[in-house]
């Protein structure tokens, strides 16, 4: 398949490109930018005038819910939703049932993903058996089975010796460990950020220290074990500094922030909207600003949706009794554009954080539009307005905190390895 994407604003942060030009795709790869290669004959010509053409987005921690929770979502439904929203790679977490702590479970994911012509699906293996924080998972086998890293997701490993050994073993296996750090004891009773709003609402709070204490503990063990660690979903401004200091000290650490923590604060929880019940919690305005600044300064590498689709029942209860997590794939681009609009960081920085940066976290090349690279491309209309109704969400999870809101920005086309996997432009040969 040969494709010419004509006249779009090409934003390719890795190559510091931001200009109106054409993109040529041939045999799954970027053939050229600007001028057509000699003898190029486009089978598909896509008119991208007024649109942005950029590297496809990467999600580092989606709950795909399969196997075990197919009533919430499936690999097929969410891989398609990812493609519809500009994602070319989506990494799923191992907190399925059974847990992905053996290659056999992971193989199921691979097979399902292969059947869906949508975003590329990768997975994180479990760091400990059953995510219970007691026995190390067979990380070497998981790696041979294709996992891109290991994680214990949000379940804190309370026993520091187990954590230290897990990190050391992951280092031996050459695997990156994805850590969502929260102190078990300070976090276990809370359901939102501890502050004036939690006090007024009478909801048990999770203090900011729950995160900084855990990150500091984890970093001390990273220093001892030499493992490459990626800190997921930072929620507090203080954490940004802890990560930056660790980097300054030369430790192999990276970090990301979930889109929710850049868009909402604890004050938004005022109406007890269960779709704002997320882990880590939405923190103060100061924290949100600090996280935005962290992205701007490059202290936070990536921005991810951390998509957690739920069925209606999971959220049909008073706030504190609902399952945590929000469906975020569909509003990701509009939310990212809004952050840029508000001046948290500029548009190329936003695209860098959503595309090239997560590729680097995964230890991969890609995420750029250099000739020869796999053609993973997102084409979006930065001015298209739409309303986030349940029907308008591509994800099976309708638990979006943006429900009912008017959003600006819509993905029009997604290309994975040179194949059009989402086409909102009705492209013609």
């Amino acid at each position, binding site marked *: 398949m040969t494709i010419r994407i004509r006249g779009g604003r090409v934003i390719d942060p890795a190559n510091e490109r931001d200009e109106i030009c054409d993109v040529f795709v041939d045999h799954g790869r970027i053939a050229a930018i600007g001028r057509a290669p000699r003898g190029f004959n486009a089978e598909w010509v896509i008119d991208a005038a007024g649109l942005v053409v950029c590297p496809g987005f990467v999600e580092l921690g989606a709950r795909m819910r399969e196997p075990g929770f197919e009533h919430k979502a499936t690999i097929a439904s969410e891989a398609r939703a990812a493609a519809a929203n500009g994602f070319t790679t989506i990494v799923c977490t191992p907190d399925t049932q059974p847990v992905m702590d053996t290659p056999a479970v992971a193989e199921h994911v691979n097979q399902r993903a292969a059947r869906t012509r949508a975003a590329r699906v990768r997975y994180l293996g479990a760091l400990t058996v059953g995510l219970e924080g007691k026995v190390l998972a067979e990380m070497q086998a998981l790696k041979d089975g294709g996992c891109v890293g290991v994680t214990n997701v949000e379940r804190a490993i309370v026993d520091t010796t187990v954590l230290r050994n897990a990190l050391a073993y992951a280092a031996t296996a050459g695997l990156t460990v994805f850590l969502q750090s929260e102190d078990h004891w300070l976090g276990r009773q809370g359901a939102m950020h501890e502050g004036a709003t939690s006090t007024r609402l009478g909801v048990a709070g999770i203090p900011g220290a729950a995160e900084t204490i855990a990150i500091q503990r984890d970093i001390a063990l990273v220093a001892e074990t030499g493992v490459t660690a990626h800190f997921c979903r930072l929620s507090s401004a203080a954490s940004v500094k802890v990560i930056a200091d660790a980097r300054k000290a030369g430790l192999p650490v990276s970090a990301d922030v979930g889109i929710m923590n850049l868009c909402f604060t604890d004050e938004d929880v005022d109406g007890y*909207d269960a779709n704002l019940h997320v882990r880590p919690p939405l923190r103060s305005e100061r924290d949100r600003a600090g996280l935005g600044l962290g992205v701007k300064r490059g202290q936070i590498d990536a921005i991810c949706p951390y998509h957690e689709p739920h069925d209606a029942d999971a959220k049909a209860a008073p706030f504190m009794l609902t399952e945590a997590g929000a469906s975020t794939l569909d509003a990701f681009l509009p939310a990212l554009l809004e952050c840029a609009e508000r001046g948290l960081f500029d548009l190329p920085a936003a695209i860098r954080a959503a595309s090239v940066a997560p590729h680097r976290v995964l230890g991969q090349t890609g995420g750029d539009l250099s000739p020869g690279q796999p053609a993973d491309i997102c084409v979006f209309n930065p001015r298209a307005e739409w309303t986030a109704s349940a029907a308008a969400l591509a994800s099976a999870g309708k638990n979006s905190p943006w429900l009912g809101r008017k959003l600006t920005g819509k993905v029009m086309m997604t290309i994975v390895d040179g194949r059009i996997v989402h086409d909102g432009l009705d492209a013609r040969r």
Partner: protein
Amino acid sequence: MRQANIQLDAEGRLKHFLGIEGLSRDLLTQILDNAERFAPVGDRAVKKVPLLRGKTVVNLFFEPSTRTRTTFDLAAKRLSADVLNLNIESSSAKKGESLADTLRNLEAMQCDMFVVRHQTSGAAAYIASQVAPHISVVNGGDGRHEHPTQAMLDCFTIRRLKKRFEDLTVAIVGDVAHSRVARSEIHALKILGVPEVRVVGPRTLIPPQIEAMGVKVFHRFDEGIADADVVIMLRLQQERMQSALLPSAHEYFRVYGLTEKRLKLAAKDAIVMHPGPINRGVEIDSAVADGLQSVILQQVTNGIAVRMAVMSMVMGTQAVGSAA
């Protein structure tokens, strides 16, 4: 997004009574005035008015309660409503029925009002968002969030004894962190114009940034109670010791218990209140609880009139002069 919006109808009248936060001074005053009109009903030989005749009120209690449930029960009966008392804690919830399904079933039985107590903050607002439009919800206490009828009956008691809110100093003492009474109380007193509301307790029992609610924080008992016109003591639960918030009940009484000697630091004519049930010798000395300045039992009596007022208002049959 504030829940105040969902408790008012299009004309600004009370549709549900979920919390004090966000309500106007006029509305709270109206509740107190209506309660004044209902108060004499309890002194009559026939303690009934026909305002809610033919209506069915369900007391939906997900958490144990004696005082609150009984006074809601009495209030509804004095308004001539039919009353159904449901202790969900020991029925549906254990059978695995979801909250939403319990509500559907009760709606199917054509009930008109739910009085709800639930151990989770925000439960009353959630239930109000789920019920059919003709049903009113009254919050009988949700987690640590609000207990609005308790706050109104306390304000009713204060107004009867002190006449004006504008020159009062009110001290709320004890476990503010876990108290829905304290939160509703703070909102109500501030809205009604009390210039100084204090919260008094150790740092482990005063929630972070509570100053944002307009109160002054005191950690020393003697300073917190000094010259107070109203002293509201909060109940201390045994669990607080187990979760390492306090060393012991003994030490608590030593530092924060209200004794006759300490009460002398308050204004001469100070009144002592407590939402009950009291722990004698833990937060309050028996001599004070049973003493002349204590109005604890008046609070209970007033609770019936206040709940009658609230129930009649949310049912759209606001009390008029002829009701009493």
